[in-house]
């Protein structure tokens, strides 16, 4: 009808043909568009109510294959459930537009670059508190009781919004026990021992630290903040994280900065060239035995498994004590805050019950024991430590055990104040390069803390560490 009407207009022959072709193609496109169906998450097949669960997870040093295995197993036992797993190191970039569009996945494991607390504060996450009181997967025990004591910390007020499945230490120091044995070196038991060790290693052409200059956060969490804690105890760290006036210019912060400058300038403790390296490149240098220590969490072994020589005896070490610091806190160990590594259910999920059931399955002792054994990652679930095969992992857990509850969370500052942390991190890089002095560094840090303190648009958090 439309074509005939247009043809009655006195068109030139060629234009008439062109227009007919265009309209024909437009019609085809409309038909094709009309035939495409949108994924609604549930098949419209009346014969079985198939549920599709979508999981978006961060793929970092811990990988995602262990979740994939569990998902495959779960689907075999639950034929009505289809699980789609999307894992990526940049999952935050995919997650954010989905959340904004109101199309959150059912299950979220956001990683460090997504503001999961903002999603929680905006009512985007399901309150798991009641679910934690229900039985765990294939068990009569309450789900919440299957977690190790003190692990369920992903909460606001009294409500639990996330569950942690993997346990991660903070940034520990790692070394090769074989290298030390072969050279008859002792691990440093004091900060002064570190300097003695440095001289011995230099004589062998080995640097003390492989610092990833392109990832200065490693130096912030693995060297600077732990040194502040050693020098000033939890009190110093808490004053800084709580943005107390003058905290970032106090003695522990200044002295820690001076110590790092001394390590670089006078003692030459950092691997030459490492300031231009990424964390993978720096860690590779470490595994090539060009440096004594690398700083990382328990993900190091898994992350670098393709590079680690067979005879390398990767062992964890707590940061050396500072002789003038509070004696009772020198064994304090860093742990990870866990918000980025937690598992959450979207409030808007159409299949919340199924999502919870899968999370129960994923966090069940059986699944976690299998993961711990095969993947070498520690979990927060009771009764899984026995499955640890990795000697390396056992050394890391020993560090935490030896702290006897004296733990703190250097990375917590990033959870609450990411912009402040990025600015401090950049300045740490300048300090390590010798572009700013320790005094300039703390002046800058204090100025940033003041700006943050006075910014009423940013919610402030109260930190308290070391409570058992």
């Amino acid at each position, binding site marked *: 009808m439309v074509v005939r009407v247009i043809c009655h207009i006195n068109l030139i022959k060629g234009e008439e043909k062109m227009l007919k072709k265009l309209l024909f193609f437009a019609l085809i496109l409309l038909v094709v568009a009309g035939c495409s169906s949108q994924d609604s998450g549930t098949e419209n097949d009346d014969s079985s109510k198939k549920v599709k669960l979508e999981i978006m997870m961060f793929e970092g040093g811990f990988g995602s294959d262990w979740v994939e295995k569990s998902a495959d197993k779960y689907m075999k036992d639950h034929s009505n459930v289809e699980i789609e797993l999307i894992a990526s190191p940049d999952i935050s970039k995919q997650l954010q537009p989905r959340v904004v569009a109101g199309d959150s996945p059912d299950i979220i494991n956001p990683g460090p670059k997504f503001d999961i607390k903002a*999603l929680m504060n*905006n009512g985007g996450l399901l309150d798991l508190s009641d679910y934690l009181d229900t039985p765990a997967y294939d068990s009569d025990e309450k789900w919440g009781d299957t977690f190790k004591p003190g692990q369920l910390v992903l909460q606001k007020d009294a409500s639990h919004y996330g569950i942690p499945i993997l346990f991660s230490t903070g940034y520990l120091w790692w070394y090769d026990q074989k290298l030390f044995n072969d050279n008859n070196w002792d691990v440093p038991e004091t900060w002064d021992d570190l300097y003695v060790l440095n001289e011995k290693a230099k004589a062998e052409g080995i640097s003390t630290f492989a610092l990833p*200059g392109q990832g200065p956060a490693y130096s912030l969490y693995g060297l600077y903040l732990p040194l502040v804690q050693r020098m000033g105890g939890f009190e110093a760290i808490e004053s800084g994280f709580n943005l107390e006036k003058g905290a970032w210019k106090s003695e522990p912060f200044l002295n820690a900065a001076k110590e790092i400058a001394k390590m670089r300038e006078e003692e030459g403790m950092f691997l*030459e060239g490492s300031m*231009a*390296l990424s964390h993978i490149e720096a860690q590779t240098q470490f595994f090539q035995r060009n440096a004594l220590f690398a700083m990382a969490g328990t993900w190091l072994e898994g992350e670098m498994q393709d590079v680690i020589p067979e005879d390398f005896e990767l062992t964890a070490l707590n940061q050396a004590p500072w002789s003038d610091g509070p004696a009772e806190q020198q064994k304090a160990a860093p742990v990870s805050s866990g918000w980025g590594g937690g598992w959450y259910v979207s409030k808007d999920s159409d299949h919340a019950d199924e999502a919870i059931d899968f999370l129960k399955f994923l966090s069940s002792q059986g699944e976690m024991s299998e993961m711990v054994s095969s993947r070498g990652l520690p979990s927060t679930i009771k009764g899984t430590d026995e499955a640890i095969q990795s000697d390396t992992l056992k050394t890391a857990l020993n560090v935490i055990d030896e702290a006897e509850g004296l733990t703190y969370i250097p990375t917590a500052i990033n959870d609450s104040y990411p912009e402040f942390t990025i600015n401090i991190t950049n300045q740490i890089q300048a300090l390590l390069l010798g572009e700013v002095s320790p005094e300039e560094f703390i002046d800058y840090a204090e100025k940033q803390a003041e700006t943050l303190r006075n910014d009423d648009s940013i919610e402030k958090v109260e930190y308290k560490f070391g409570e058992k």
Partner: protein
Amino acid sequence: MVTQSKLLIWVFLIPAIFLYSLFVVYPIFSTLWTSFFNWGGIGEKVWTGWSNYTQLLSDENFINALINTGKYMLFQIPVIVILSLIFSMIIANSANSKKMRFYRSSIFLPYVIPGVAVAMLWAAVLNPITGLLNVSLDSIGLGFLAHEWLADSSTAFASIIWVKTWHSIGFYTVLILAALLNIPKEILEAAEVDGANRIQRSIYIMIPMLKNVLQVVVVFVLINALKIFEEPQLMTRGGPNRATEPISLYIYEQAFGNYKFGYASAAGFVFFVITFILTLLTLRVMRGRNNE
């Protein structure tokens, strides 16, 4: 007849206008709108009026990023334009067409490699410990020249300029070359007969006749310099200590690192206005010279 032809023109234009509006015009206005709010990317937007813009004025990191972007622009334009002009003239004067095709293909080759791959490749070459550059220098007895290219503020910046030039110069060379080859031979022969040497023919005949294509090249280089992102992101992460951080990376950090989408939008809109003005000015200056 005319009306019916116009109808056909609109039939072809409307889809293009629609797509342009959807993917270009709408995002600009959406960004402007978002810039008047505090928004963490999730949840409600809170109206703040002009405060994001006033905050930008005192944000030393924003100013630093703008300065860095200006430096990228000021270095890249003359380097790329002059080098591509020289290369195109050399290629145009090749002895035979086979050689010309070979040179043209060789210089264009880096351009077909995706920018991300180029940045990662050169980051590996410039690695201070295992990179090809330092290892080669060491092997020929010039180890004292080895350097932490990407960890030193001055060399990191120069390295990025170099990589950007290496990647894109082929495209501009081929562009200029095409225009060069279209210059009527008779004009050049006449100049030669009149006693003009090669350099005089290049300066007084070829370059003036290349004004239009040079204008295009300058605008392209300007825009690409202003929106530089991959090389600083992948080679230096904007470091050391923001020394190589351009405005695009700063905006990215504000949005996806600090969850300040309103603030990032304000920075983005300011940058859009600056780019727009700079591009117009450049075109005006070059057109002014054309009219002389």
